């Protein structure tokens, strides 16, 4: 989002001249989809969203939404917004942010009501939905923040998956040996940095294609952790796998805040990694867009030659950023074995590193955008597992496809304009 804001006037003028009809078309298609699916094929009855759990201090009544009527509201709203986006593109050459945002929120809500209303039970506990989603969202956020740090400085990071996996493995191993979860957390960051170090050495020093390095590192880490898992972690002493019994990080509920319905259990009953994630999103956003450090990084990622000319050491900046990204992803990996589940298993990250990449792109290389995309993907992923038995109108596998399909639409310009930093993936050779 801020990418467009930072463009120079001449480029912005070019943008006005080139009218892209993809977004209005996309909105139109989705609006028609809403009319057909939410209204014509929509479920009768009500979709019930349970906001409180039984033991909560503040009991909030359930949110009951009449599915059909809500479907009509969403469809009419979507049609109106699609028309508005067409009008804006025609008159001004661009679509204002509120139209896009409103459309997205409205459509997601419509989809949710349609899905819940279509199940057998027609109700869902929002707390369960969001706390479950956080299990997916947290590593996704760390992974995509790692991507933000690397790619904003011009290094494509396909190795997020490997960094997460290295973090998960090392956290489990070190926490098991030392019986100290914080030692595990620290070691996970170091492991992530190690993967990043390889990425940086090969892609910056030896100028190997960054995508090749990333792909290969994922295979390397998967093989390495798998090999060491078989050799070390499966070793039993007195019938116990002593090297795969990590001491866990406890949940630290924040008083008062954790009692807020839905938001409290989701955001304020987390482990230290969860709070660190919230802080990190804000810090990286502020750092990138409001500080000198961030300006330099973006300069290196957008136009390394110019950055070099004003005295910024391009390759050193990239090197440091890639290493920092590795530490961030490593901590995200630690979440798997120190918080989410109680031990390491082979390839336990299961492709989340690639969804993190998707979140990064769908969030337009912006920390906050990436975090919101990670939340959306987390909710979609968790909804899939919650509803797998509930007889949904839509098969869970299609929900599983959602992050990937949205990302393809985003990179091909159908959902907003997702643009990578200009020098992303380009090696820089001083000369």
């Amino acid at each position, binding site marked *: 989002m801020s990418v467009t804001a930072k463009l120079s006037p001449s480029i912005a003028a070019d943008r006005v001249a080139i009218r892209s009809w993809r977004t209005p078309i996309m909105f139109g298609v989705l609006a028609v989809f809403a009319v057909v699916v939410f209204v014509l094929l929509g479920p009768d009855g009500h979709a019930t969203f349970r906001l409180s759990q039984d033991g909560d201090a503040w009991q909030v009544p359930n949110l009951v939404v009449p599915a059909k009527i809500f479907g009509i509201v969403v469809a009419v709203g979507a049609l109106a917004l699609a028309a508005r986006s067409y009008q804006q593109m025609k008159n001004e050459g661009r679509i204002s942010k509120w139209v896009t945002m409103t459309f997205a929120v409205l459509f997601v809500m419509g989809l949710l009501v349609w899905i819940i209303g279509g199940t057998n039970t027609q109700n869902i506990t929002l707390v369960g939905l969001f706390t479950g989603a956080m299990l997916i969202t947290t590593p996704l956020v760390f992974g995509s923040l790692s991507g933000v740090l690397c790619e904003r400085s011009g290094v494509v990071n396909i190795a997020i998956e490997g960094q997460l996996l290295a973090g998960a493995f090392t956290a489990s191993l070190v926490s098991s040996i030392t019986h100290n979860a914080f030692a595990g957390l620290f070691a996970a960051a170091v492991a992530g940095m190690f993967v990043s170090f390889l990425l940086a050495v090969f892609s910056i020093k030896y100028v190997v294609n960054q995508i090749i390095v990333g*792909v290969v590192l994922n295979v390397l880490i998967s093989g390495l952790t798998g090999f060491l898992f078989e050799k070390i972690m499966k070793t039993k002493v007195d019938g116990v796998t002593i090297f795969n019994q990590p001491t866990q990080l406890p949940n630290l509920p924040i008083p008062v805040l954790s009692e807020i319905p839905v938001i409290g259990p989701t955001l304020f009953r987390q482990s230290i990694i969860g709070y660190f994630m919230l802080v990190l999103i804000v810090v990286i956003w502020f750092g990138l867009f409001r500080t000198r450090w961030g300006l330099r990084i973006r300069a290196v990622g957008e136009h390394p030659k110019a950055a070099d000319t004003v005295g910024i050491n391009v390759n050193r900046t990239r090197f440091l950023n890639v290493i920092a990204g590795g530490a961030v992803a490593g901590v995200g990996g630690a979440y798997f074995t120190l918080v989410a589940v109680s031990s390491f298993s082979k390839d336990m990250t299961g492709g989340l590193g690639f969804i993190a990449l998707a979140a990064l792109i769908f969030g337009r290389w912006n920390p906050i955008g990436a975090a919101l995309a990670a939340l959306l993907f987390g909710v979609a992923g968790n909804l899939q597992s919650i509803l797998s038995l509930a007889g949904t109108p839509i098969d869970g596998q299609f929900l599983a496809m959602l992050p990937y399909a949205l990302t393809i639409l985003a990179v091909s310009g159908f959902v907003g304009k997702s643009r990578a930093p200009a020098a992303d993936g380009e090696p820089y050779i001083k000369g």
Partner: protein
Amino acid sequence: MSQQIETAKTPSPPAKESEGTHLVREIMSGNAVISVLAVVVALVIGGILIAVTDPRVSAASGYFFADPMATLSAIWSSISEAYGALWRGATYDPTARTWQGQLGIFETLTFATPLIFSGLAVTLAFRAGLFNIGAQGQIILGATFAGAVGFGMHLPPVVHLLVVILAGALGGAIWGGIAGFLKAKTGAHEVIVTIMLNYIAISLVLYLLKNQLKDPNSSNPISPQMDANALFPLLLGPNFRVHAGLILAILAVIGVAWLLNRSTLGFEYRAIGANPKAARTAGMLVSRGYITVMLISGALAGLAGVAQIAGTEKSLDSEIAGSIGFDAITVALLGRSKPWGTFFAALLFGAFKAGGTSMAVNADVSIDIVAVVQSLIVLFIAAPPLIRSIFRIKESRREGVSA
């Protein structure tokens, strides 16, 4: 080198395309010596890992200063047992109980068959400057299409197999074509699109295996068995798994070699890969090139899916592609993006797979070490200066620039 600086100067959309140019030069340059040394260094590092994690070695190292030879011999026996088992499993193992088990070389050929197809798929796209990471998804789609006509229809012999092969190629071509089309028409980066298509393919096949393609007699998400007429004939009788897909794969190598080196279309691909702007100036339709090369590349990967379902697996499940799609990338890199290079690289990786199983059974070394060695090989090959500095080889001349 000067060309890279040129690209750094203009970070506008056309500069993005030169990324592919750089990629092509990077992969094509270098020589056989570097490749061999890269394999050696990777095996050495793998050996170190095997030795370090071997309890016999750590036991002997406890009294290293008292008896250093004990440690060394423990290291030697640890590594030689593992790599010995790997080698015997991939070629000829005189100690195996059955004579079929002794001839691991045919398992190597069986494993190599889908790798040849998918390696060619990645190779072809590379040469046009495109990075096809989506072989995995294209294999799944190919296998799904091939499976759908393989167990869904009942046709006479030969005809049925031909239909299966065509369907598989079509499935892969559709999946590859999506990436090519989006690259050509919207500029969407093919790496991102193909990665995402891989995951969509997995979800899609899982959905189909729960519904349309499910075996009604099974409670698992697995398809019915392929029709007997739809299978590749076994080349060496029922004792070995090696099948006629291997012959098709060799034909594909010859075909791709001809396409790249002798045909007009191949010339266009190489021109686009070398410099898309120059190709456009010369009157070539770069966007059409992207679309067609991804269609052919996807079709080749689809044939790898056919080799899986009509050759070895015989029914469809969500694991049909295994790790072939990702191995294909390393195969193509090791083969330096040349058709015959890819062929031999696929044989080597097929040998790793066949030998890795024997190593896991006979030397208690997890097959994961194969993934480590494979990825190290590619890393070292991709960074010739690193290998040169390890072995203190002087760079005698500048290579590959003419390619």
